[in-house]
């Protein structure tokens, strides 16, 4: 049985549709990638699950089932508790993801103490262990630092530690490496994968980087304008994607074997075909 199931989730902002009947399921311990261009709605799926959608975006229809519980059936308080106990977030931008006016150690232990009722010393021990696990040297000192005293890579390590602190069953990673420079990206990616293996956490990995998907994911969804174009396993995707858009997307990735080759854009006729698909969908669902 899958840990997270989303059935026919739609969302819109004003008249613009953000998500169009998105369905997906993530097994316990599975790493699922959400791939698409900017504005494809991939982050919005994560936000819908976590209940942090911006106010202007209205989710219509669909259900989100987390560990057997339909989130729509719960009261706001229950939902907050379920989401808080079972999920965590690794945000995109490590620069804004830590509160600048609080010491980073407190930001990790705070959740364990306040929400899960751990004792202060237990939380402190756990935080120190975690900082070791994410390969931070001298964790005692780092715990007492303010975020601005640490580098972007360090902060992302801390955020990973914070996400795994309460051993959630599902982590949503919203482009966790995009804001980092390339050398650090690799380390962070390896670290996320390592931690995911150690804890057996399911991971919903939002990214626009197919290279990242190839490294960490088992299955993936290709999105365009909030519509799922293809749902497949990573192996099938890289050996031969079915949807023409997916194939074109794969073509755009620069190849190491041909460093002089020019960048390939997605052919306009394929984009036109995808847009026609979306228009057809919208017409079929015009009454909504």
């Amino acid at each position, binding site marked *: 049985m899958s840990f997270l199931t989303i059935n026919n989730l739609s969302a819109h902002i004003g008249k613009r549709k953000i998500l169009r009947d998105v369905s997906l399921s993530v097994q316990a311990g599975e790493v699922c990638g959400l791939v698409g261009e900017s504005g494809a709605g991939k982050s919005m799926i994560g936000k819908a699950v976590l209940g942090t959608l911006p106010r202007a975006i209205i989710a219509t229809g669909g259900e989100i089932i987390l560990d057997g519980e339909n989130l729509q059936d719960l009261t706001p308080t229950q939902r907050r508790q379920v989401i808080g*106990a079972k999920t965590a977030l690794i945000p995109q931008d490590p620069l804004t993801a830590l509160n600048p006016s609080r010491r980073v150690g407190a930001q990790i232990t705070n*959740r364990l103490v306040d929400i899960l009722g751990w004792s202060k010393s237990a939380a402190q021990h756990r935080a120190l262990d975690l900082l070791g696990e994410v390969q931070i040297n001298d964790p005692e000192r780092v715990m007492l630092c303010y975020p601005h005293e640490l580098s972007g890579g360090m902060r992302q390590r801390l955020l990973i530690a914070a996400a795994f602190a309460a051993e959630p069953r599902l982590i949503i990673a919203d482009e966790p490496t995009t804001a980092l420079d390339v050398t650090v990206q690799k380390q962070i990616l390896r670290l996320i994968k390592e931690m995911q293996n150690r804890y057996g956490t399911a991971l919903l990995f939002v990214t626009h980087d197919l290279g990242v998907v190839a490294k960490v994911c088992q299955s993936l969804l290709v999105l365009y304008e909030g519509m799922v174009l293809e749902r497949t396993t990573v192996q099938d995707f890289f050996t031969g994607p079915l949807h023409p858009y997916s194939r074109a997307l794969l073509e755009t990735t620069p190849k190491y074997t041909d460093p002089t080759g020019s960048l390939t854009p997605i052919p306009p006729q394929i984009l036109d075909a995808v847009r026609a698909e979306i228009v057809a969908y919208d017409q079929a669902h015009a009454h909504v």
Partner: protein
Amino acid sequence: MAEARAEINRPIGLRLWLSAGWLIALVLTTLLAPVLAPQDPLAQDLFTSRLPPFWIDGSEPGYPLGSDSLGRDVLSRMMYGGRVALSVALIAGTLTCLLGASLGLIAGYFRGWPDIIISRLVDIWMAFPPVLFAILLIAVLGTGLTSIIIAIVVIDWTRFARVVRAEAIGQGAMDYVASAQVAGHRRFGIMAQEILPNVLPTICVLLTLEMGIAVIVEAILSFVNLSISTDQPTWGGMISEGRLSIHQAWWVLVFPLIILFLTVLSFSQLGEGLKDRFDPVLK
């Protein structure tokens, strides 16, 4: 890292020293006014009227900064007038800050209907001309220290609400707020724990600015004789009275004016200095 810290740990600036020094001196002087004041601030003596300050011929030793047209000592009156100015600044400033900042924080973080109500209220409030509004309020409430404080709070909370709301919206959009939300913290707890500390430097600056403004508002109200009873000296009242005899005794007007100016300036500079010092990113 240790060196980096030492490098960015800036010394307390001259600005902070001067403004805090002036304000502390002022507080001490007004508190010790009964001991320090050379004369009874209310004692009238027509034989000593319009005495010039000490460096001008014809001054009297008991009246270092001269006397007004009723023979009252300017220095002593300024000392006692400072009591009114400072208590208005502290009490009205703090109350305005508490009211305005809380409403701004709620509007900025919770958005939705609380924001709509508070923001529209601010818009309507700000459409009133503040000084006329104050005069109107005093006319209704009657004169007295409490009325002045109420008037200032009622008029100026909008400044805090506006600025703090904007800051809270900015902070609320940060990822760390989303993370706290996902972790299951209560909305109110997030506001107090995550948002408030990051808005605090701004609130701090606004508070000190507000104290300066409160001093000015009190002076304006005294100037139009709507402050506290006329037998209690205030800076605004002295400026108002001094205006009538500016050609014969300029010092009655000029000294309170200088004090008023320095005090308001010190309040605003104190805020800026404190902000530089406590802002976690600048520190």
